[in-house]
């Protein structure tokens, strides 16, 4: 990156003398003395010799420093092994010294092997795992409202499985599909079977509004949307670069983008006054601030429909976002995993639709989709990267070998997605049930005086409990969260885990429980609300 490359040289050449290499080609100088270009005109010969000599001297000094001090008696013949012998006692004594300490791990491992006491999101998940609610077995257990599972339509999935599971995995009869394959057919690409990609493209076409065609060759399938985000981070940014991300955002992004890719996330704060919708001004501000700090911003990571708020981006917003990305020459990663889980009045518009209708440089747009939310198949770990950039696709294809989906699952999903009637029916039912649950939940909360942000998709209520926290700060928010956890026994996600700038907001997932459980949850919340009010 530090090298100067051709176009800059071209422009520079005409204006000012520049580093020796480019000017030497342009001025046609004599080749006797290197670096003459730099010192042209004033004693070039002298300086042109002195400077490289000095540089060389420094290089030697540098190399000498880097090398451990050798016992000076050795003749400098590194190739033969005998001169190492006098070293031996010394080096072994040093290694003995080493063994006293524990063996070293990487910085990453040292960082992440610590228990999750940093984020209440993960602490909550742990605590539920230890004491989960069960209607009969453990009625006093913790209710899980912090994990994005959709259990509202499991019965439909189960039905379908009962009918089709065996056949789709094993293949029906000897027609050469299923496991019934020998030899060559077992060569399966890591980035997904062609059949599944085809089924996916039809499926996405339907989910994303029915107006855009998705090309199977622009797809890379991964083991869930999580690795899809990680792989894209690897491909779009180098270590130390950054992505802009509107807050509040899904707590998992921190792990997906920061851990292994080493890419930073720069929050772009959205506020309750705008119903947490993104503003280009804030984006602009965050971008220029990052620039000032010397951080290279490579893209914007958005989730649309938003997780946790549940609002969708308007068409205009998407246009301005694209303009912004175009102007700054950065990427857009659109996480659209909730595209099919809409229930509100506002229509979801995929970014694919926008760029399909406009003449826009598509190569900066990358879409992430998966079956975890819309098909309630989180355990299947099926995600997809849809990109319009061939280099990114080529790299992602290679990286998909580290998170490929196993073949039986691919076959199962292929036949499920190809069952058009089932998909149609499922989507209708799912959206109805989500709407029902959402409405019931929001109503219950509003009876307790808790308002939720306007939402039209996803499986969360983004609830404003700022009236219940004291002091009005992150500390107060975490105290309330702890109260929910230990007194009311419900696990919800505090806004601070989603990097929300305003304290007192909570993400409540309403699809992990059944409709009948909603009164129970509301009852438990009521207990906390009342205790808060009485104490104040």
């Amino acid at each position, binding site marked *: *990156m530090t090298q100067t*490359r*051709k*176009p*800059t040289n071209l422009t520079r050449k005409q204006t000012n003398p520049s580093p020796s290499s*480019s000017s*030497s*080609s342009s001025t046609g100088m004599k080749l006797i*003395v*290197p*670096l003459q270009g730099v010192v042209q005109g004033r004693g070039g010969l002298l300086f042109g010799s002195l400077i490289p*000599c*000095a540089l060389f001297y420094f290089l*030697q000094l540098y*190399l*000498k420093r880097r090398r451990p001090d050798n016992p000076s008696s050795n003749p400098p013949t590194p190739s033969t092994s005998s001169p190492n012998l006098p070293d031996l006692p010394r080096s072994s004594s040093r*290694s003995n010294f080493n063994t006293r300490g524990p*063996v070293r791990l990487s910085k*990453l*491992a040292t960082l992440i*092997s610590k228990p999750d006491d940093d984020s209440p999101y993960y602490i909550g998940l742990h605590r539920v795992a230890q004491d989960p609610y069960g209607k009969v077995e453990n009625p006093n257990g913790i209710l899980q409202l912090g994990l994005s599972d959709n*259990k509202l339509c*499991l019965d439909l999935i189960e039905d379908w*499985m009962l009918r089709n*599971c*065996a056949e789709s*995995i*094993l293949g029906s009869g000897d027609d050469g599909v299923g*496991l019934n394959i*020998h*030899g060559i057919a*077992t*060569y399966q690409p890591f980035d997904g079977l062609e059949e599944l990609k085809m089924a996916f493209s039809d499926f996405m076409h339907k989910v994303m509004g029915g107006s855009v065609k998705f090309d199977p060759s622009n797809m890379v399938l991964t*083991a869930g949307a999580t690795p899809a985000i990680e792989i894209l981070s*690897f*491909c779009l940014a*180098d270590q130390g670069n950054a992505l802009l991300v509107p807050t509040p955002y899904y707590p*998992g992004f921190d*792990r997906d983008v920061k851990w*292994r890719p080493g890419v930073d996330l720069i929050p772009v704060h959205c506020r309750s006054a705008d119903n947490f919708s993104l503003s280009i001004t804030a984006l602009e501000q965050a971008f220029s601030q990052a620039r000032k700090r010397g951080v290279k911003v*490579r893209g914007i990571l958005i989730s649309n429909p938003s997780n946790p708020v549940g609002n969708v981006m308007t068409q205009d917003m998407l246009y301005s976002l694209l303009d912004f990305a175009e102007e700054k*020459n*950065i990427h857009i990663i659109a996480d659209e995993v909730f595209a099919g889980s809409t229930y509100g009045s506002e229509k979801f518009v995929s970014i694919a639709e926008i760029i399909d209708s406009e003449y826009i*440089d598509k190569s900066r747009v990358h879409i992430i989709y998966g079956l*975890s939310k819309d098909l*309630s*198949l989180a*355990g*299947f770990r099926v995600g997809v990267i849809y990109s319009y*950039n061939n*280099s990114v696709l*080529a*790299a992602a294809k290679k*990286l998909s*070998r*580290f*998170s490929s*989906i*196993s073949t*039986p699952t691919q076959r199962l999903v292929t036949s499920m997605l190809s069952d058009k009637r089932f998909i149609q029916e499922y989507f209708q039912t799912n959206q109805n049930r989500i709407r029902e649950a959402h409405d019931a939940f929001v109503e219950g909360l509003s009876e307790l005086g808790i308002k939720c942000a306007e939402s039209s998709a996803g499986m969360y209520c983004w609830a404003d409990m700022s009236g219940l926290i004291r002091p009005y700060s992150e500390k107060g928010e975490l105290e309330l969260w702890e109260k929910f956890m230990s007194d009311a026994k419900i696990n919800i996600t505090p806004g601070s885990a989603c990097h929300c700038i305003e304290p007192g907001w909570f993400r409540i997932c309403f699809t992990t429980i059944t409709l009948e459980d909603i009164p129970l949850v509301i009852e438990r919340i009521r207990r906390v609300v009342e205790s808060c009010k009485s104490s104040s």
Partner: protein
Amino acid sequence: MTKTSSSSSSFKHRGTSGMKLIVPLQGVVQGKGGLFLGSIIPCVLFYIFQLYFKPRHRSSSPSSSTHNSNSKDKLSDISVLPLSLSRTLLSHTGSVFISGRANSLSRTGHSLYDVGLGQVAENPYHEIHNPDGVFHLGGDDNNLCMDLVQEWMEKNAMGEGRNFSMLNIGGIAPYQPFDGLMELKMGVAGFMSQAVENSVFFNPSQMVLTAGDTAAIEILSFCLADYGNAFLVPTPHSPNFAEAAKWRTGLEIVPVPCCSTDNFNLSITALDQAYNQAKKRGQNVRGIIMTNPSNTVGNLLNRETLCSLLDFAREKNIHIVSNEIFAGSTYGSEEFVSIAEIMEAEDIDRDKVHIVYGLSNDLSAPGFRVGVIYSYNLNVLAACRKLARFSSISTPPQQLLTSMLSDTRFIQKLVEINRSRLQKMCSALAAGLKQLGIECIRSSGGFYCWVDMSRLMCSYSDKGELELWDRLLNVAKINVTPGSSCQCIEPGWFRFCFGALTECDIPVVMERIRRISEATKS
């Protein structure tokens, strides 16, 4: 190269003689007009350095101050633009930045391994339908016992009227632990114990399941080494292993060559030498990654070697990653010793040892992609568990494998039949090759023959090897893996994978090789 070597030797001289520091490189030219030559030489080097840079400038892609453009098709657009255009404008017309790591990845062409597989996929051999097709001896699959697996599935798991455990939808559709279901871990632990004849007890809680063994190795590398650190890897290793492990982790692979004279066994001397040389280059060696039974050669590491390996790791305070994906596919007289067995006996330094295992090979279930990390280091385990979110296995195959592994009678039978079929295929292949006068290393595990084809090469070099590989693929229509893909230092060795063959294929393969062999002689 010349520059660094001359400079390094120069300062060594300087160190010994305590010369004056006015003129660099005087050390080299000491005594005979040092001042003069000591100036000329760096000047000349510098000039060459500039010359070297000039062509690189031309070929490199256009960029601007912050936004680099990378795709080649845009390059032509930009060179057409008038030069007066401001730099910022240039940056906007250029295509969007792609990370350096993605760039190097997307640019690397297909490896020989992929080329071979591509040919096979296009034109696969079939006894009746496509007798002129390409034979698949270049893969990593074992299909020898697929019929048994298929039969079991139909009978027990998913056939009509069977109540497959998978139909408990609550257990597969929602989120499950990213590092694998506990039931499957128990099954895997039992199976791993069985593979080493119950000499070791594997603890399911020391296990992390990942989507395939490559992912397992990558995750371990992320945990054990920082970007730019090095691992010692005995060669020949499995093809593309090094590249794959390097891509994201930024690992450096230090090959530890094993030679045909030692039957490609690992020698501690070679290991020590490689370690010291890496140290001298300034590399930070964090561990050894080895495959046992070896992928490519198929030989086993004996108890003594394992013990001295552990001693070596202890002395240098580095990790050992032992890839034992073929542990259940051993045959022959030699006994397979897992490093876990040695660990049982020794109680110290357990935190340095990590085992990688995979189920697909030993269970003849390709495509299931189940990898296992088994570690004695609690911190490593904790980190791996969290990283498993990026390569977790989907639940249906987990459930399927759980119920398969719980059927111990079937598993026992499967492993036994698998071993005997592997052995039969291996000796049939070796015998066939021997008739043609081609020798191979005696394999005791895995489904590969490591074959010495140097006789058939036109010239004893890497070039000759590639040329022979090309002839085998395009003339004889046999896809094999050349030794150079496995980083073997001796040319002429090839890896034949017999996991995808049937016994009646062998005479056909031999006939095709005979034709090549005769063409070489004449």
